[in-house]
């Protein structure tokens, strides 16, 4: 197992290099720069600025410099927020994004698994249809539709929940409810569908019949025998799910005005804040790679048939 993790981490490094290179050179090809203001600044000031940020060098040199700094954990200064480092900015936004994202993932996994299992056990009955109908709604209504509508109905009309901002002092934890639910809904739907399909397949298999035949109680069969192998497809979906939650958070943070990382990213890209864009890309890419690794490990723990060394 140790060598497996090591090997995966070693593969992660070239992947990260490819990602950073792609993002870096794409940004540099872009017309315009961070110092193109509405009112052009004098050439001397401009040159000084470029020199200060090392942007007077050839692009490949800039990339090498960036990578050397990155290897030392330095994400560089922000080009737009002059008094702050990229690391500081990300440090402010990251906890918010992580909190919302992980709550949404937890909610999605629990509710999705539960709903899917219920639907499978009551296949073709009304509760099955209810769950599948709900899943269809979840798949068809994206966060960018669901978010504003929930904010309008639950927040504005019924005045039940706060619709934006992250004011814990005033509203307590209820500020998290709408963003987390909105972000989780599509994933609940997808996980419920996956779970239902795999559970149906599992219940029909021979070893479940054996377990029943030897007189185990129905809950014991379900929890100890069926559930364990039925969740395997879900585990392999966790990687893509976390990527989906991350891109969903870009929308959520805008809809509910949350000071997360995604909110920075779009603005930074529009304003050509190269270092901030790169910083966000690096952090998110590492996060996705890490979560994929975690999902693979979890998969092999749950499924002893998978060997690390094969």
């Amino acid at each position, binding site marked *: 197992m140790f060598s497996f993790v090591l090997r995966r981490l070693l593969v992660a490094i070239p992947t990260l290099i490819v*990602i950073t290179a*792609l*993002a870096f050179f*794409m940004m540099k090809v*872009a017309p315009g720069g961070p110092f193109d203001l509405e009112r052009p600044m004098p050439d001397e000031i401009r040159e000084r600025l470029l020199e200060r940020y090392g942007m007077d060098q050839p692009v490949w040199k800039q990339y090498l410099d960036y990578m050397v700094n990155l290897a030392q954990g330095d994400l560089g200064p922000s080009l737009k927020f002059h008094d702050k480092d990229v690391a500081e900015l990300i440090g402010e936004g990251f906890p918010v994004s992580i909190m919302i994202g992980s709550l949404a993932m937890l909610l999605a996994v629990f509710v999705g698994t539960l709903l899917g299992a219920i639907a499978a056990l009551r296949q073709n009955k009304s509760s099955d249809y209810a769950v599948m109908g709900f899943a269809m709604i979840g798949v*068809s209504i*994206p966060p960018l*539709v669901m978010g504003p509508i929930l904010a309008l109905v639950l927040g504005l009309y019924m005045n039940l929940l706060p619709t934006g901002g992250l004011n814990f002092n005033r509203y307590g934890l209820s500020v998290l409810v709408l963003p987390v639910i909105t972000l989780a809904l599509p994933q609940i739907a997808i996980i419920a569908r996956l779970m239902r399909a795999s559970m149906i397949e599992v219940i029909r298999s021979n070893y479940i019949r054996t377990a029943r035949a030897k007189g185990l109680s129905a809950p014991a069969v379900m929890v100890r025998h069926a559930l364990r192998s039925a969740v395997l497809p879900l585990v392999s979906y966790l990687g893509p799910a976390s990527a989906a939650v991350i891109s969903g958070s870009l929308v959520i943070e805008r809809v509910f005005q949350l000071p997360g990382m995604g909110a920075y990213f*779009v603005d930074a890209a529009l304003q050509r804040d190269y270092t901030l864009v790169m910083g966000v890309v690096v952090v998110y*890419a590492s996060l996705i790679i890490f979560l994929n690794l975690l999902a693979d490990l979890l998969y092999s723990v749950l499924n002893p048939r998978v060997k690390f060394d094969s």
Partner: protein
Amino acid sequence: MTTIVNPKEKQEMLTKAAVRGRSLWDDARTRLMRNKAAVASMFILGVLVVLAIIGQLGIWVHDYDTIYRDRVSIAPTLDNWHILGTDAQGRDLLARTLVGLGVSLMVGVVATIVSLVIGVTWGATAGFVGGRIDQIMMRFVDILYSLPFIFFVIILMVVFGRNIVLIFVAIGAVEWLTMARIVRGQTLALAKMEFVEAAEAAGVSRGKIIQRHIIPNVLGPVVVYVTLMIPVVVLAESFLSFLGLGVQEPLTSLGRLISTGAQDMEVAPWTLIVPAVTMMITLFCLNFIGDGLRDAIDPKDR
């Protein structure tokens, strides 16, 4: 003894046989038509497409970019035919929603075609050539899979300006990966099938085998995947437009309308509700049709 069959009779027998025989596709069509949700969705989607075309042609009383300065944020009313109201700038919401719907659907179809072309070419080449080239090509797909793509699309949109052709290319270039995998898997599996071997043994040329045996058999999963991909692409476009990176004013798309509607919802909730509901209906229909097609073409997954 030999029975002599005259040519006319033989012809008749052949046509009868043709009538009785049911191809895979006939079966699929029958199954699809029995799926009420899918049929209803096809009908509604047809209506939406007609409406979108009307919107594009500008037949409606109002243009999507005409600004009525004295009619800002009017609630749905029959006065002046603003039956769905006007937006915060005084433009007719129905006209804008129809144009937005058209743009969203068009992006959905065109970007899907882009990804279809890339994915099928890539997957089929890898599957046919096989060996080391196959390995390299699919490894490349694996690596791309693990990238946080939405960031690249966002950077792409920022870098090369925000025009609609780029949206097609950007989304299509992102979504072809799964298609390539499906097509490669299918071609690999098919190439080992006995009927392909039989055709080879019978001396059928390679081109003919691809044309007669491989393509029709790969088509099923590809069609299913394509229909399920259109809603995904529509979503991707509205995602970009929502973030302000998609189509630019005064042109619009559903995602863009929803994003401005969300900003104005306290004063003019209809500017949010109308495009949001339109988008919901569209995605519902597309998903139902996709699911129906999947059940029809590949019944074992039901």
